[in-house]
């Protein structure tokens, strides 16, 4: 299978690889996928408690090149956005940006899931002090 230049670029130079303290109150962690399906993504966000702006994002992904590229791109896109803005990111935008073929669309879906799961985790942590509704999937 031939990959788009953007997928190759993210694969060769993945952005924002790493991990943050998952116990921190400012950090939301999303872990989606399953090893037997061939894809697992961990996406973490660090949110400013006052502005709700995502100040940092990290990822680690087990999966094909398109899965790595989708999650790498997702960290780039969420950074600097508020959590509500980040929830607007659609998998179809990832498909378009990376020129993913139809068989790789599930990689973009997983990246969108990872963003939502990380935000959901962060919101849950905030709910302990100030209740915020968790966006239903």
């Amino acid at each position, binding site marked *: 299978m031939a990959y788009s230049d953007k997928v190759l670029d993210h694969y060769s130079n993945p952005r924002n690889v790493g991990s943050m303290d998952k116990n921190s109150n400012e950090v939301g962690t999303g872990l989606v996928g399953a090893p037997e399906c061939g894809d697992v993504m961990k996406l973490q966000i660090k949110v400013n408690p006052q502005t709700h702006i995502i100040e940092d994002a990290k990822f680690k992904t087990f999966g*094909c090149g398109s899965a790595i590229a989708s999650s790498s791109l997702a960290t780039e896109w969420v950074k600097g956005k508020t959590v509500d803005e980040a929830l607007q990111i659609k998998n179809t935008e990832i498909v378009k940006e990376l020129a993913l073929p139809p068989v790789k669309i599930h990689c973009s879906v997983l990246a969108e899931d990872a963003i939502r799961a990380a935000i959901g985790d962060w919101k849950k942590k905030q709910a302990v002090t100030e209740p915020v509704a968790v966006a239903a999937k």
Partner: protein
Amino acid sequence: MSTVVENIPQVTSAKGVKLPIYMDYHATTPLDPRVLEAMLPYFTEKFGNPASRNHPFGWAAEEGVENARAQIAKLIGATAKEIIFTSGATESNNLAIKGVAEMYREKGNHIITAVTEHKAVLDTCKRLEKYGYRVTYLPVAKDGLIDLEDLKRAIDDKTILVTIMAANNEIGVLQPIEEIGKICRERVVLFHTDAVQAVGKVPIDVNKQNIDLMSITAHKLYGPKGVGALYVRRKNPRVQVSALIDGGGHERGMRSGTLNVPSIVGLGKACAIASEEMAAESKRLAALRDRLKQSIMSRLDETYVNGSEEHRLPGNLNISFAYVEGESLLMGINDIAVSSGSACTSATLEPSYVLKALGAGDDLAHSSIRFGIGRFNTEAEVDYVADKVVSTVLKLRELSPLYEMAKEGIDLSKVKWAAEAH
């Protein structure tokens, strides 16, 4: 109208190794130059139809075909008349299984095979099930071998055929065909083996191993694509198969169609070379394979060889790299031609059914790479491949949440994965 075919771009590594490296010899092999040389006259001056019995053009072609038949027969301990030419192993497998099923329908309707067979066997058996045949799919153990006791139990008075491959195309595991042949002979059941990966790589003797039908293809053996053969035993017992392709009654009526003479000559030459060189070559390939395995596994933790290491083709190495997905690994070693059992590399998005049958778990199937070492690989290439694989696996493990979790002491099999979306 002309079509521009681009050459595969080549570069040379710092250590003088030409890239890309071909290490996918189970998929196909390049033509041996000696094979090409033998074939060439049959495209031009010896172009005749071997069925033309009344002029020298036909005789020259016939001589080439009969010489090839003898060369193939010699490699497998058969007689020339027992070799039926086909278009390749898929056709040979179809002809053997469907041909026996139809011919022996009066005797019974039960066929026995194994879950790790090639699709050309499995899908043929599945089709026969639609026509009222019963098929038993024997399981394999963790090492990829069938249990002979399972086979004995599966044979009943309606069994007409056992079809078990000699060597597996993914994991290179060699089934105990001599023992299988013996059991089949005792129980008076025909034995077919798909020996596509085994012929010319490990010794085959149709009499010693009690093989009644055997599929062969040229392109796994440094011969051309599009030509193969089916060995059909002529005595003790005399085996008959119904034809799939009707016509001029070529190949003793079992396979009509004008013979593909240049390719048949190529298949014969490839077998002749194998007869001469197999012993030395398999020793050399096994040494290269062991070097590759040693070099990779001494530097990486949690890597596993899939399938028996004892009963294995000399050139095969199939390794799972835990916590790394196969397709992403292939992307990182894109100057090396190998293949993966990962779902992402298959059209069906299912991981390898062969590796799943070993009970390794889907995650290890997704993480597998098949190295197929062959005639034209060198030690320098093996070293390059090992270094590249090791560095890529290390890089991808840095990227892998599973590796991180495993290092934190989390038991991944106990994690509740949120994967309902798939």
